[in-house]
């Protein structure tokens, strides 16, 4: 099957500011992909490139096998929900649904009607008078109602309260499951995405730090606690992600393609949240101009 998103050395530069650099990705279909990174990491840029709002300044990107935003057919296949879920404040809920029905060839009236009934939205209400959660739900309904093959959501829950977040993600997952849609959604908090994603991309300082299926990532990473030693002393095949040292002992987070070899250490798995935080921290605040892989031990010593 065609990858939902394929990027090669993708880069985006706004004037002198670099928003995304050297991004190579291949997202297999049928996933709910979480895109995590701190504010300003380039998440929005990547998503806007994917739906054709932006054109890359370097490299190439294809979505569902085509150039993003290349024409009405491509637009019909990709749904996008922008940050803060923009709606027309002076148009009613019903007007928005009519807008979706008029502007999309594959509009699913039944699906949309069911969603609106479930959400208990009043069709006559002006969209400007909706709560933040309701507005996001409306925008999601419009984006999902055109039955896209891929639904892209940029920070969909950032401005919602915890209850609205839950409701929104539930709605999203139900819609995606009902229509067999692949989903990419971004957030600066892994906790927002942990429950719904089965594929994860960590983007820090305009670079992809980590990408893969959640299960595989969890299985490949270990925290090792052992007597104090240099990372070089660890067996070959272990990639050190971070290292911390006290007087007596060292704590490493390592990545290993194969099962972890036995050794004179205590090993434990990491939660997704811990792992993402470690990747975000080790990237450093601003790798300028090209940081390359930093020696992780140096960071930890600086931190001490």
């Amino acid at each position, binding site marked *: 099957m065609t990858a939902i998103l394929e990027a090669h050395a993708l880069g985006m530069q*706004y004037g002198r500011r670099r928003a995304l650099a050297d991004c190579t990705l291949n997202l297999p279909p049928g996933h709910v992909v979480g895109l995590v990174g701190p504010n300003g990491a380039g998440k929005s840029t990547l998503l*806007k490139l994917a*739906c054709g*709002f*932006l054109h890359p300044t370097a490299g190439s990107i294809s979505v569902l096998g085509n150039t993003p*935003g290349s*024409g*009405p*057919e491509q*637009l*019909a296949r*990709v*749904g*996008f929900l*922008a940050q*803060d879920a*923009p*709606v*027309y*404040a*002076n*148009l009613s809920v019903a*007007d928005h649904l*009519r*807008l*979706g029905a*008029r*502007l*999309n*060839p*594959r509009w699913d009236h039944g699906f949309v009607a069911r969603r609106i009934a479930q959400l208990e939205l009043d069709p006559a209400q002006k969209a400007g008078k909706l709560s933040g959660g309701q507005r996001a739900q409306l*925008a999601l309904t*419009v*984006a999902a109602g*055109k039955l896209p093959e891929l639904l892209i959501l940029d920070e969909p829950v950032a401005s919602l309260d915890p209850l609205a977040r839950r409701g929104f993600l539930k709605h999203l997952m139900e819609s995606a499951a009902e229509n067999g849609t692949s989903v990419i959604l971004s957030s600066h908090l892994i906790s927002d995405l942990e429950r719904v994603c089965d594929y994860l991309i960590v983007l820090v300082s305009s670079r992809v730090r980590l990408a893969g299926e959640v299960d595989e990532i969890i299985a490949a990473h270990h925290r090792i606690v052992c007597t104090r030693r240099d990372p070089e002393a660890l067996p070959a095949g272990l990639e050190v992600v971070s290292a911390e040292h006290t007087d007596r002992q060292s704590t490493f987070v390592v990545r290993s393609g194969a099962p972890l070899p036995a050794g004179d250490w205590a090993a434990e798995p990491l939660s997704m949240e811990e792992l993402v935080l470690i990747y975000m921290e080790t990237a450093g605040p601003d790798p300028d101009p090209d940081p390359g892989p930093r020696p992780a031990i140096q960071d930890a010593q600086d931190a001490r």
Partner: protein
Amino acid sequence: MIWLTWRQFRTQGFAGLAFLAAVAAYLLITGTQLRHSYTADLATCRPQNDTCFGLLNGLQSDYNGPLQLAELLVMAAPAVVGIFWGAPLIAGELERGTPYLTWNQSITRFRWLAVKLAGVALASVIAVGALSLLVTWFASPLDTMSGNRFGTQAFNARDITPLGYAAFAFVLGVTVGLLVRRTLPAMAATLAIYFAVQILVTAAIRPNLLPTTTTTVPINQSTMSSQAVRFDRSEALTGPVTISLSAPPGSWALSQTPVLTSAGQPVQTGTVLTCWSRLLSQGGAGKQGSPDFGPLGACLAPYDLHVDITYEPADRYWPLQQIETGLYLALAALLTAACFSRIRKLRG
């Protein structure tokens, strides 16, 4: 997309329509009254006095207020359309991030822009065109009386030029909005640019659109019968002499030379004064010290005095209307092309 354009434009459209209806009612009533008075006046005075000058003059001044108001409306309408329909069309959307919603439906942003532009541009041209038509009808008796079709207000607020202005002002508003991306600054810039272009075209470009006609009027008894020679009363007794002569009726007088000699040089005040004082000393002056032109003319005859008047003939009215409308439509087309090129490069 047509539905969405209509749905978004509906409120503004109805507001414009309501305003137009109010103006139409006023002009139709006033215009009908004007026509009644006009025919009645002509019927009463024609038998006695063929020109009806005084009576018609009174009628013109009676209706001067409504005429000024109507002309002001037609001249302001394109600017209003540019500011309130044009500038917010794209800028308002960009400000609120709604293109993220619409551009992700299954239509390209080019189609989105094309339908919005075409739909509201059509409404703008129709609205301003209807207003212009009404005012042209209302003012036609007054225009016949004044015989002045080339005055700034008469030319800019009649017939087809307002259509060109409306198309230009609307697309100007859209383009500025697309570039500035914020509604209020876009509105202000649209107003400033529109009036700058209007002033430039009216004052500097329109007189040069078509080749002008120049006629030479000799200064003699027949042309001077109703004129008085005005002197530049400088101490030095030099400087040109000017005489105000009118261009052919219904034409657009552009410029007039001072009184020239046969060599094409301006005649000096001293020359005329010399003739005049000679007449006075001979006692040949007319009553109240104003010399009849006959003797003065005889004295000045060797100089073969004449005045050159440059003007556009009356039949240039429609060619000028058409050319100027075309000019504004061409500007609007250029701006439209700029909009499409800009929206391609617009970053979300």
